[in-house]
């Protein structure tokens, strides 16, 4: 324990003197905030949808069939009530909800009121656009049911009613920044000692590999928390991102994710021989993380292979977690799946590291 403390103290001292790295701890979050402040929206297909059909008429079923036929949504769930539907939205199981009220048939005769309601998860950037597309969608005309010249749906954006991109981007951006800095800093910090010959000395001391690794990681856990706080604070102050869930849950999720990215950095360090290689490896992880995690493009709209790869990127699960907590106000109990996936990732990564890290130079 005291050895871990000694290594951590040394690491912090060195970090404080390494102005470039120290600058990056603050600089990267700032820069990324500005860069990603403006995101791009894309069309998507195959969004998972939940349906509450209170009308239960042939007409309401026909409407759902027409929506599915358009290919934009895939009905995943038939919920019993609007409350159930909201719960599924909040846990992230579905990203769009269709509510067909009991008075669906009556509304058909009332030209002022829309026939049904779309509930949209506004925490993801592009889904809201899809809803707009649905409203304008030319559903096949069904004589006696509805006509295309009248609005079928009314759209309600949940969790981000003003539809601001920053609100969608900022929480997930925490994950992107942590992926970048945690992976890179740890990989570089360990490879640097090997490159400079310090490791050769450390190996001949009584410090065990586990002590060496933990001692090196401890300072970065704190750096990760500082960065998390920094981005969240900037998000709230500059972009007025609402924090709907509990801060406790948010920091719990962040810690899980920091642990996952640190072990990822450790894996990179066991492969890289130079600091440059360590740096390149962290980029190699970062790019697919940004593209496949659901940070920019909705996860649901991706081809199966991409979604499969994304399961192995910790950022995917963190984006799901953090959007759930910060924007949709979901509790940890509702987000068990991504939590377990993150834990599984960290455990698997740690196993790989222990197998690969030997206390010798061979």
């Amino acid at each position: 324990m005291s050895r871990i403390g000694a290594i951590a103290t040394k690491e912090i001292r060195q970090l404080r003197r390494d102005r470039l790295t120290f600058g990056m701890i603050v600089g990267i979050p700032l820069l990324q905030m500005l860069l990603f402040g403006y995101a791009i929206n894309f069309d998507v297909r195959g969004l998972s949808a939940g349906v509450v059909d209170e009308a239960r008429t042939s007409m309401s079923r026909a409407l759902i069939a027409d929506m599915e036929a358009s290919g934009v949504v895939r009905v995943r769930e038939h919920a019993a009530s609007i409350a159930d539907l909201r719960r599924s939205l909040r846990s992230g199981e579905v990203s769009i909800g269709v509510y067909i009220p009991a008075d669906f048939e009556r509304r058909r005769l009332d030209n002022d009121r829309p026939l049904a309601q779309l509930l949209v998860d506004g925490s993801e950037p592009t889904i809201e656009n899809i809803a707009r597309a649905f409203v304008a969608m030319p559903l096949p005309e069904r004589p006696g049911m509805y006509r295309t010249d009248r609005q079928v749906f009314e759209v309600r954006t949940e969790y981000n009613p003003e539809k601001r991109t920053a609100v969608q981007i900022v929480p997930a951006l925490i994950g992107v920044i942590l992926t970048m800095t945690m992976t890179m800093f740890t990989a570089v910090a360990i490879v640097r000692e090997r490159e400079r010959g310090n490791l050769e000395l450390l190996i001949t001391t009584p410090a065990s590999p586990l002590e060496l690794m933990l001692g090196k990681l401890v300072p970065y856990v704190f750096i990760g928390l500082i960065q998390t706080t920094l981005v969240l604070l900037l998000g709230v102050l500059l972009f007025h991102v609402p924090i709907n869930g509990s801060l406790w849950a948010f920091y719990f999720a962040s810690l899980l994710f920091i642990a996952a990215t640190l072990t990822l950095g450790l894996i990179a360090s066991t492969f890289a021989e130079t600091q440059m290689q360590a740096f390149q490896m962290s980029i190699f992880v970062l790019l697919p993380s940004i593209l496949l995690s659901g940070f920019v493009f909705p996860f649901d709209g991706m081809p199966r292979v991409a979604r499969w790869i994304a399961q192995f990127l910790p950022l995917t699960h963190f984006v799901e977690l953090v959007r759930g907590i910060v924007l949709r106000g979901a509790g940890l109990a509702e987000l068990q799946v991504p939590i377990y996936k993150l834990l599984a990732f960290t455990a698997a990564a740690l196993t790989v590291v222990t197998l690969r890290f030997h206390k010798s130079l061979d």
Partner: protein
Amino acid sequence: MSGQAQSGPAISARNLTRRFGKLTAVDHVSLDIPRATIYGFLGPNGSGKSTTIRMLCGLLRPSEGECVVLGHQVPREAEQLRLKLGYMTQRFSLWEDLTVQENLDFIGRIFGLAGDMRAARIGERLAQYHLEDRRDQRAGTMSGGQKQRLALAAATLHEPELLLLDEPTSAVDPQSRRDFWESLFELVDRGTTILVSTHYMDEAERCHGLAILDRGRLVAEGSPRQLMDSIDAAVIEIEADDVRGARHALDGQDFVKSVAQLGNRLHALLAQDRSDPEGSIRKLLEQHGVQGKVERVHASLEDVFVAATRFDADEKAA
């Protein structure tokens, strides 16, 4: 340390071998290093000195053979050895961005020295190695000699029984080298065993025991005196005004194994089995019309080194 019951050699290696792919860096080296002595590894670059030292402290796994260090099988029991072993790498391997005090404090904590004890020990080492006024200086800004003293202070902080020094004086001026060796003898007096690798003859000559390594093989072993007495060559010194001419006269002669110039003198190593070596040389010089004084002399360590490494190279080339 000196009061501790000690038995057997500090280091005992049998057929120690290490291959890197096709290259055999260390080739069946066997040696015994007695306790409380300075033992030297002498050899050119790439002779396997560092690789052997790294195997002895458990940094590298031997491809073949075995070694027992302070009674522990290495690498199997390398962890039990850690507290008894001090290792100074060839390259400065402390942290250049930490101060002298911080470096020593870190090493002290890693070796489990408790607070007061650690502070006392650090103070002791700083005084011993003249680093007191450098206490708060970053290691990276110090001279080669200062860095090396710091490295020695760090390696001896936990009072190891065995000190492994891999070319400790390669980046150090002659005065610092002399001081450094004084410190080594002080340590030996207190019972420490020291294994040091070098390519300096004067350093090798100071060792109690010496192993000459060449391309991974141990080609000669003994005390410097023994090695010089038992050299497998006749050493002939030629003093001539026309040194170049004399040298030319010896060129291409099979029985002349090696010639080295020292000012206006030549040192020629002749095959041991040659009868009347001086006479043969005189005859050669006469044939080439070179005047000179020819005398058989006692071998220097350099002669031993040349005889042990170069002769062998010739045989291999042939």
